[in-house]
């Protein structure tokens, strides 16, 4: 315990000395973090400095082993680091699918060569990753995917189409699922591959969302060559890895949305700004109750994620309970967005132009974007199926 307190003191001192002052108290909107990669842009150059100093210590991936560039911290130390970052109101130096999805998968299933090749670049934010799972005909029923990979010597030749690929246009590498044995049962002929997006035959077309932004794409793959050494795990046995990655993804989505990054103002501040008050109290009792209920549910959710973390034996990867966090965390975010829109009233109806503050326009778009939370990463219905089967043991 004493050691941890020393660690806390030293961490704070180091952060105070090295974090760019301009970043203190900066609140990032969802998706506004530093995603890294070759195409990264830095509207605030201090974000780049921040990434570099943190990556140097491996603190962009605090719990990864030092030989792959990580921080080598214990769970308790990593928790302290998170707390200290929060206390100083510092944004995370780096976010993205490398840190939260493919990195943990490579640590568990990757070859030594794959780890040495990819993990340090993720830690330093040099390479940005995207996820090539969904296809036009394979969404919830992911295992029915059709993108073909045919072996030719040391390479696979890939043909097919991925869809809803978030940020494919900004990414350098993709981890993807392909069919290597079309004759086998659908779960058995799938292989998990790593693909350089700069390979000839990769074409990316952005798709516009209801919120007006274009965070995801269609990805067309025509005779793309991927070296066989880029297979993670075994050929035709990619489904196990695909599912393990989904657990990491769900945990990531749950914590991103459920515990609230990117909040410019608190709900209470919004309420004070837009709603009539009766002395201290909000005059609209119905909204007051919705707000209390939301806040209480959000706290119960946070306590439950804390409890899961406290209970997790060191190093245990997330299990089927990540489905619960995915459902609840995303629904909480949707409820929060609904509530904000209700609080702001007609000021939450702006799309662009005069008469609406920037913050108000963000409300509209964040609300629209939040509808996707219960779809991306596997829909809520699919998560409920997983809980019913894997946690409750209900029959098929």
């Amino acid at each position, binding site marked *: 315990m004493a050691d941890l307190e020393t660690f806390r003191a030293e961490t704070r001192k180091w952060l105070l000395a090295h974090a760019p002052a301009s970043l203190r108290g900066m609140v990032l909107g969802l998706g506004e973090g530093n995603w890294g990669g070759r195409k990264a842009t830095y509207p605030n150059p201090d974000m780049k400095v921040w990434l570099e100093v943190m990556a140097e210590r491996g603190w962009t991936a605090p719990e990864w082993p030092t030989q792959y560039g990580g921080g080598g911290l214990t769970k308790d130390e990593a928790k302290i680091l998170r707390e200290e970052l929060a206390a100083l109101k510092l944004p995370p130096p780096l976010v993205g699918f490398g840190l939260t999805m493919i990195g943990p998968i490579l640590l568990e299933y990757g070859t030594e060569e794959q780890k040495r090749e990819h993990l340090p670049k993720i830690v330093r934010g040099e390479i940005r990753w995207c996820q090539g799972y969904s296809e036009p005909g394979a969404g919830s029923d992911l295992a029915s995917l059709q993108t073909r990979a045919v072996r030719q010597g040391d390479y696979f030749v890939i043909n097919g189409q991925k869809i809803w690929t978030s940020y494919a246009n900004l990414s350098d590498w993709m981890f993807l699922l392909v069919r290597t044995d079309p004759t086998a049962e659908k779960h058995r002929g799938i292989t998990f591959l790593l693909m350089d997006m700069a390979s000839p035959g990769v074409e990316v077309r952005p798709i516009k969302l209801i919120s007006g932004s274009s965070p995801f794409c269609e990805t067309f793959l025509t005779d793309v060559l991927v070296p066989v050494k880029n297979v993670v795990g075994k050929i035709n046995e990619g489904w196990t890895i695909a599912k393990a990655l989904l657990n990491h993804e769900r945990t990531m989505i749950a914590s991103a949305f459920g515990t609230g990054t990117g909040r410019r103002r608190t709900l209470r501040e919004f309420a004070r700004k837009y709603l009539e008050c009766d002395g201290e109290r909000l005059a609209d009792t119905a909204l007051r109750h919705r707000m*209390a209920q939301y806040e209480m549910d959000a706290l119960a959710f946070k*306590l*439950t994620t804390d409890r899961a973390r406290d209970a997790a034996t060191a190093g245990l990867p997330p299990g089927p309970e990540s489905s619960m966090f995915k459902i609840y965390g995303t629904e909480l975010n949707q409820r929060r967005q609904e509530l904000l829109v209700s609080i702001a009233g007609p000021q939450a109806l702006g799309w662009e132009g005069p008469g609406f503050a920037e913050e108000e326009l963000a409300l509209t778009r964040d609300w629209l974007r939040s509808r996707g939370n219960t779809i991306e990463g596997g829909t809520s219905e699919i998560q409920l199926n997983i809980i019913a089967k894997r946690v409750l043991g209900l029959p098929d």
Partner: protein
Amino acid sequence: MALVLTEDQELLAKTALDFVRTHSPVSRVRALRDSQDPIGFSRELWKQMAELGWVGILIPEAYGGAGMGLADLIVVLEALGRHLAPEPFLSTVLLGGQLLTLAGTEAQKQAWLPGIVAGETILTVAYQEAHSRYNLQRVSTKAEPDGTSWRLSGEKIQVPDGQTADALIVSARTSGEPTDPTGLTLFLIPRDAPGLTITPQYRVDSRPVALVSLADVRVEPANVIGPVGEGLPLLSQVVDRATIGLCAEMLGGMSQIFDNTLAYLKTRQQFGVLIGTFQALKHRAARLFMEIELARSAVMAAARAADAGDPQWIALVSLAKARCSDAYILAANEGIQMHGGIGMTDEHDAGFYLKRARVAEMTFGDAAWHRERWARLHGY
């Protein structure tokens, strides 16, 4: 404070669950109800629970107890809640025992606490009146000075274990109007005090409660608990702590009815298949699972915060009670629905859980009341 059980708590939980499974099937509650048992629980089991050390968990070692915390007691209460055991933890341990522990004089503690720890003395608190709902300060029972003594008149309702209690601690107004926050005082009254009438009430959950009427009941100054006129903060604190214990009981109850329902989904067949294959039921079961998990986190956090004296603890009590109230009712309603017709029969246990859920919901404030309190605590 970590939201996990310590090794000692794991062991305690296991012992309690084994004990409850062996000695306290739900059929026992049914038998107590059907015979309109005048005690409403088993004195013998209570004595055994005391011998196991459970009754004295919260009471300081100086009075024979273990001096442990709510985080320890709740694992026992959860086990008891699983089988709806009606033994008098709420009245004697969570309310009466806690009031004396927190505010009793040395003489009062010496007089009552060792008997409680031994499982011999039953003590209760009479705080509720016909129009008070969840408001502890809405008290019409009056205490008027009579020389150095007091004379109490009024009526208290649904007093837990009222008919067996050796003494009752009664909230009464020594000054002010029926809703004033000040002017409340707590009085300890032995059951044989002249002017005290205790009449059994039959509530939907069949737990023993009583109507208590006071007609010029004389109380000596030695039996005043805590400061005169300042009883409300004390009573609120004790009720908030007791709420955590009640929530643990609720957690046990909702977990058990849920387990029973899951077992039924895995055995009952219709249309040639197990009903647990129907997605309409699966998804609802999965949602119920989440609600119970969230309730559990809130109860564990509230107990740990109360033990640690964390200033957040009151808000966490509201969180735990709101969650448990909603989740227990939902678990019981869904339990009956998913059992179909059999769930509606008195012969089946599901109804016992629904009835207990309703009563527990309305003890110490329902979900809406606690949400309103949360808003007030946070300045809106």
